[in-house]
């Protein structure tokens, strides 16, 4: 099969990759050797990060998901694989629905149980996440947050690895809520694919700007594929929710037309 023939990772940026594909990395043994000799300690500048959907193999990078191969240059700018060779991040942009907790991700969880000092939250992963009642802004042993089973909570993972139960908090490092906490009783929760969430969260996303022209609404996006929407009325909430769900399979043109049609009526 042609697909299994190893190819240079640079050349395949922006192309579709399949699980089992092997991506070769540009060889840089002499450069590494030099650096080791000159500066044995300290972080390497040209460090290559192996992102989601890729695994380090004996020959190079092994693809574990199907999707588009992406690359970002070492300094954070989109390198587009311009032969920088050393450093940067490779990852696979795939469409999936199953969420795998990642440290630092902001997600929407549903409280499933109150067990003593901790709440159990369903985040759509393989295991429930735990959330301490003290991990809310201004919460003390006396002043407990009012959380009921079935409530929605927007929080952040501080522990997420494959061997341990994921743990969430609703405060940032300085103890502020920073937008996190319990989500109000109104509004509606929809589930979309993880790819759409990433698209919506990308800086300067047009979908939300377009929708904002329709009506004012509140929106919470969880990296686990859950979106909470609230508009003035049930009807408006439903419209926003349905457009967001449909965005998955619409081109920018179609979306603009749909929004224009709605704003007329």
């Amino acid at each position: 099969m042609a697909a299994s023939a190893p190819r240079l990772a640079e050349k395949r940026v922006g192309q579709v990759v399949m699980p089992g594909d092997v991506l070769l990395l540009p060889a840089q043994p002499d450069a590494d050797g030099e650096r080791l000799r000159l500066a044995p300690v300290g972080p390497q500048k040209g460090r290559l990060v192996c992102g989601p959907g890729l695994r380090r193999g004996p020959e190079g990078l092994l693809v574990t998901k199907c999707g588009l191969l992406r690359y970002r240059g070492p300094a954070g700018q989109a390198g587009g694989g311009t032969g920088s060779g050393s450093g940067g991040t490779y990852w696979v942009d795939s469409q999936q629905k199953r969420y795998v907790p990642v440290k630092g991700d902001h997600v929407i969880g549903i409280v499933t149980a109150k067990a003593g000092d901790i709440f159990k939250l369903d985040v759509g992963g393989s295991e429930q996440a735990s959330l301490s009642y003290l991990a809310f802004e201004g919460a003390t042993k006396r002043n407990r947050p009012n959380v009921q089973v079935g409530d929605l909570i927007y929080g952040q993972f501080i522990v997420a690895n494959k061997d341990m139960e994921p743990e969430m908090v609703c405060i940032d490092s300085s103890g502020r809520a920073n937008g996190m906490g319990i989500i109000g009783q109104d509004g509606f929760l929809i589930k979309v694919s993880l790819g759409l969430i990433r698209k919506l969260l990308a800086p300067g996303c047009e979908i939300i700007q377009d929708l904002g022209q329709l009506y004012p609404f509140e929106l919470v996006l969880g990296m686990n594929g859950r979106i909470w929407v609230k508009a003035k009325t049930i009807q408006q909430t439903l419209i926003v929710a349905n457009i967001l769900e449909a965005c998955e399979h619409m081109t920018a043109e179609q979306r603009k037309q749909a929004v224009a049609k709605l704003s007329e009526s």
Partner: protein
Amino acid sequence: MKETPLSNCEKRFLLRAIEERKRLDGRQCYDYRNIRISFGTDYGCCIVELGKTRVLGQVSCELVSPKPNRATEGILFFNLELSPMASPAFEPGRQSELLVKLNRLLERCLRNSKCIDTESLCVVAGEKVWQIRVDLHLLNHGGNIIDAASIAAIVALCHFRRPDVSVQGEEVTLYTPEERDPVPLSIHHMPICVSFAFFQQGTYLLVDPSEQEERVMDGLLVIAMNKHREICTIQSSGGIMLLKDQVLVCSKITGVKVAEITELIQKALANDQKVRKEGGKFGFAESIPNQRITAFKIEQSPIDTDDVQEQAEEIIAKATPPSEALANPVLWAPGTAQIGEGVENSWGDFEESEKEEEEIPEEKSPTTEDQTMEMGDTSVGTKNKKDETIVLSDSEEEDVIILEPEGAQKNRAETSYKQDITSKKTGSKKKRKSYSHKKH
């Protein structure tokens, strides 16, 4: 894997939306989702899609001995399966309460309504009857499994053809589809289930509830009816009190819905029948593009063919001529003889064969080059060259003098040379080359 819990906020929102007579997908209260029926390549296989709910139905048959108390009736068997593929909440190999309920309802809807003529499934009374098995698999759970499953079951049964049998005295003959066309089952009527979800103690009523609506509903009423407006089964679950009027309204709605669905089923069956007769693409095959190659790759690799000619000539020039050692003639058959394993031909016909080949070289030389290029590998090219040298030192097998009848030739081929075919090819090549050499 546990089912994702329904949050309070979803519950509240859904109930408020229902109060405002609005549904998530923009349907009216009495609207069904889109129904799509597609058939498999085999008879008795169909997929029914009801919105996002998909059910695969497959009917199979078997000759078995009948139940002792019903000696002249065939056996109908229904089995619905909920696999984790449909929803992560379903566990494999466990009979959940929902599954038992759905299976029981299906049986009541299809077997107890006597929609299939079981008497016609009898082959030899008390000895052999057909057992018809309907397997239903839920492929995706989007709510209202029972409606989709009942449609899938009846469509699969209508689509199914069983092998023809004939009974002559004691002898039962089973015909393959090639010998005799398979026969359809005799179906009296088509019962179809229609589900109603009740909210707020029966204040609000929705037809064809989606998965989310099913999770907030108070009670469910399932009515199975055929197009003659005969109720086949009615079941209410969830423990709600229903008024007589409500049930009557529901049965009226059912009548309308069943008529619509029956018409759709008949259209789908007729369409499939037509396409099958015409020999066009039918079943799931219609969704598969016609042998289109979706991915194809040729990796190019350069081959150096510049000095092939020179190299070959060089090798020929360097090569030592074959030894003149004459072996004892071998007598293969009366009137034929062979000398050595391959010695220069000194027989008259050699001249002719040379003449024949004389004309070929100009045409052939490019083709040999093509050949090496097609092989696409330089190593193959070099191998070819090596072969030539070997054959050369081996001397010309081609020129072995054989004047023997067919049978004897075969004998020779069997006993002696494995390289027979290859050497013939390369031998001619080499000869031609030596020819050009001479010309030069």
